[in-house]
């Protein structure tokens, strides 16, 4: 058992280091010829990063693994169409993000949680109902210096409804343009802007109880 495990680890190391040492052009050639070693090297080299991207989008570990698998199979099928204009890592990244969005879309057939209660409320005259808005205990850098902040922010992002979280991830984290995000999600650019703004507002509301400065009595 241990021998088998150490052999597979050695194979893994050899396959993943191969991508780093060979030129991308020669690896692409091998992939196009259908060589299994080249495919394995690609999976081992880019898989870990792609899995963390998929986890961010899908929250569910099994869904994230399925999306990565779909992404690699889709890359295998369409490697002939890859022009080489961008790096293969960028191309794979885009394919896996697409696979994640497809999964999110299929989930959205189920009714989604409303975000309305996380948005600011206004009186009839247009003033904020919660007046005045509380200050927070510090800037982003100061808050990040605390050990627990990262976990709180990640949990709050995970609490956003899928359709809002997807747009927030595409625009603010993946740093795609509004146009690209709109094309990937299948909505208009204006709808992306509205959804992004609402997602940020909802995230702000979720974080406020953790970071608001206690009133001075």
């Amino acid at each position, binding site marked *: 058992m241990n021998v088998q495990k150490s052999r597979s680890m050695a194979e893994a190391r050899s396959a993943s280091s191969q991508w780093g040492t060979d030129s991308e052009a020669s690896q692409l050639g091998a992939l196009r010829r259908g060589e299994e070693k080249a495919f394995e090297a690609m999976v081992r080299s880019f898989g*870990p*990063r792609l899995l963390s991207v998929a986890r961010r989008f899908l929250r569910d570990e099994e869904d994230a693994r399925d999306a990565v698998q779909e992404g690699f*199979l889709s890359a295998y099928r369409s490697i002939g169409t890859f022009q080489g204009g961008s790096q293969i890592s960028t191309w794979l990244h885009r394919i896996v993000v697409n696979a994640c969005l497809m999964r999110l879309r299929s989930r959205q057939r189920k009714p989604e949680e409303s975000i309305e209660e996380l948005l600011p409320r*206004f009186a009839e005259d247009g003033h904020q109902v919660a007046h005045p*808005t509380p200050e927070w205990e510090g800037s982003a850098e100061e*808050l*990040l210096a605390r050990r627990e902040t990262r976990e709180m922010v990640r949990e709050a992002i995970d609490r956003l409804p899928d359709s809002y979280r997807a747009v927030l991830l595409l625009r603010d984290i993946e740093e795609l343009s509004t146009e690209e995000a709109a094309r990937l999600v299948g909505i208009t650019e204006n709808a992306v802007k509205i959804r992004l703004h609402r997602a940020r507002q909802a995230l*702000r509301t979720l974080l*406020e109880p953790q970071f608001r400065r206690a009133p001075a009595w």
Partner: protein
Amino acid sequence: MVTCRGVIERLGSLVDGKAGWDPAASRHLARCISCARYLQTYRTTVALAREVSREAEPADPPDMPESLVRRILWSRRARSFASASWRVAHLIGVAASPLIVFSLTR
């Protein structure tokens, strides 16, 4: 007159530096402490989300589970096999069709 609602609904344009920000909204922010704090905490929220997600992607991410690697390699083999089988079946069909036509027309 620009209200809190008018300002807060357009904060996205201000934070993203896009056109469409009304100078009257800037004047509102200068005198409304509530909206100014809202803008500040909105910016902090965006910065926190960006920073935390960047950290979630370390330069050297941990290895992928071996079971997943195996699953992907296996499904690629299965797909190659299915596609090769389909090609063979197609060739057999093409080769056999004259025989079938011949036997039917006899």
